């Protein structure tokens, strides 16, 4: 009698466990290698926050599939990025996301390619990706279009272009220079190494030799501040200063208001952020609630990348093709509106619809001033920080 009772209890527990296992959602591991420390940490942390928010949003909205996120700090180092990718794949990752700067993307994407997995990035600075199953919602051409487009709209005849020699910055600078020279603008290039401490000799060359109408800068945050301070001291007679990424953000504006007044920078968002769509408003609200700050465009990249990747994983899981390269196939079918605009992927894995915008720091606001159809404010031109 006692035995029969125990048997019945065991059977009940086993059947409950069996039922529970069918009710539990499938969990897929996604690995993310990002520079959370080191010189590119600010970039990595912003993107990581957006990607984390996308993970939470997906897991909240999906009963059938869940994403388990593994984040590894690669310090932007190619060797560490490759090692991180190997480790995350051995931990069961079905897809990888991350990478910045370009050499770190190359390292991790090669590992993912060998393992037959999708590698998604927001930080590859090349114009063509030679990896199989590589996807990126933004493209370097978007920066070039925005920077060159703004300067052409200003009617510039001559530009001095100061740029970091790192791969991504060099790509953007070269592409901008080509777009400008094709339109008859005289461009003088001033490449510099990251270790530079004093930009006055470069700015003085621009002031006394180049004498351009505009100065353009393609580099990183601390370098922009160094260049702008040198320019404030030497005061070259130019009409505007047009920068690339990392300048037109609320954080930079709040930290360096004097240096950045009237300076232009690539962005996706005006500040205060104005989202016209329901998705955009929800993103901004959730971001502020989670991280207690306003989102910038890097967080948007992380968020949209996550959305697109997780949806592809869910579709592949539903079709039972995860193990047969189904995620890559589903990524290629992606065609959706997002908070950064329409996303599809061409044969190289880039999003052909991606166009950045230009913002100008005006007081404590960053209105969008280019392209005209996206503008939320008027350009202060000519306008300088001094």
């Amino acid at each position, binding site marked *: 009698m006692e035995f029969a009772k125990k048997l019945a209890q065991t059977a009940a527990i086993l059947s409950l466990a069996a039922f529970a296992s069918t009710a539990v959602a499938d969990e897929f591991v996604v690995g993310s290698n990002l520079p959370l420390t080191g010189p590119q940490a600010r970039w990595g942390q912003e993107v990581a926050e957006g990607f984390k928010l996308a993970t939470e949003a997906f897991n909240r909205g999906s009963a059938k599939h869940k994403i388990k996120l593994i984040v590894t700090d690669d310090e932007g180092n190619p060797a560490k990025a490759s090692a991180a990718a190997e480790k995350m794949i051995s931990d069961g990752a079905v897809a990888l996301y991350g990478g910045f700067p370009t050499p770190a993307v190359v390292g991790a994407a090669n590992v993912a390619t060998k393992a037959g997995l999708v590698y998604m990035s927001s930080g590859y600075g090349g114009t063509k990706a030679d990896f199989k199953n590589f996807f990126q919602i933004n493209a370097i051409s978007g920066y070039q279009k925005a920077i060159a487009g703004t300067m052409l709209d200003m009617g510039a005849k001559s530009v001095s272009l100061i740029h970091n020699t790192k791969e991504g910055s060099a790509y953007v600078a070269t592409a901008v220079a080509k777009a400008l020279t094709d339109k008859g603008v005289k461009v003088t290039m001033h490449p510099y190494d990251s*270790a530079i401490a004093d930009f006055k000799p470069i700015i003085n060359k621009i002031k006394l030799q180049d004498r351009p109408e505009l100065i353009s800068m393609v580099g990183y*945050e601390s370098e922009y501040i160094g260049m702008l301070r040198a320019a404030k001291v030497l005061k070259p007679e130019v009409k505007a200063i047009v920068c690339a990424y990392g300048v037109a953000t609320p954080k930079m504006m709040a930290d360096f208001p004097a240096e950045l007044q009237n300076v232009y920078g690539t962005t996706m968002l005006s500040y205060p952020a104005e989202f016209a769509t329901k998705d955009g408003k929800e993103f901004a609200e959730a971001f502020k609630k989670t991280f207690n700050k306003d989102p910038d465009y890097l967080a948007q990249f992380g968020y949209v990348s996550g959305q697109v990747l997780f949806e592809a994983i869910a579709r592949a899981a539903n079709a039972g093709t995860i193990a047969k390269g189904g995620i890559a196939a589903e990524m290629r079918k992606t065609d959706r509106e997002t908070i950064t605009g329409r996303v599809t992927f061409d044969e190289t894995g880039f999003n052909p619809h991606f166009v950045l915008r230009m913002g100008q720091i005006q007081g404590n606001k960053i209105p969008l001033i280019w392209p005209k159809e996206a503008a939320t404010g008027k350009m202060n031109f000519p306008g300088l920080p001094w």
Partner: protein
Amino acid sequence: MFDLILQATYSGLLSGGSYALIALGLALVFGTMRVINLAHGEFVLLAAYIAYTVESQMDWNPLLALPISVVVVCITAAIVYLLVTRLDKNREMNSLILTFGLGVILTNLVLFIWKADIHSTSVGWFQEAVVLGPLYSMRSELLFFITSVVMVAILWVWLDKSWYGRAVRAVSSNRDAAKLMGINPHVTELISFLIAGILASFSGVALYCASVIQPALGNALTIKAFIITILAGIGSIPGVLIGAVLLGVSEALTITLLSSALQELTGMLLLLFVLLALPNGLFGRAGRRG
């Protein structure tokens, strides 16, 4: 062209002055102990972040952070010294690995506490231009340069005239003979580390006022300081200032006359040339005995 070269030389001179102040502490410890403290750049960075905290949290002028920076950085320097003294074998080589590791720990500690954002002083006075005829600079750069020259002079006089200064030179010259003269080399070496901490505090606060700081900067500062120490030669304090100015001017002239992309290469070529022509550095003497 003359104006360009003049401004480049002036900018290089000021940059060299700032490099000298950063390198001085590393050169002193290297001269005394033959230990290359690869965490020295992180000492400078720590002081810079303390200046940032004092300015942003207390709304004080960052220069007022100096006493706090000196205390915190000297405690850190003393800890590093105590760890270095625990190395029994091959101290010169093993201390490289130890201090490199400590530098990584300090960088990550800075990152953990202050995050990855870039910072610089918001006191506009430091960024105002000082115009001397055709020469332009920021007030903070001049201040950094003057501080550097004054610190070099004080250190030089201290090493030459004070008992402890002479003890440092004695230990640097011949450790065993210094012991026989009643000098405690451990105390002397600790003093060197503490003075390096004080110098790092001055350079960190000056760096925050003149430039932009971020957690990854420590390593670059150490490399620059190391190059200058080797250029100057072991045991030469004025040599540090001259070597640093030489490096600063060479870099600025390279940017002006050749290309800004070649700036770092110039520093390395200068180092290589000096090492080949003068193996003991510009003002160094042969290695110590004992």
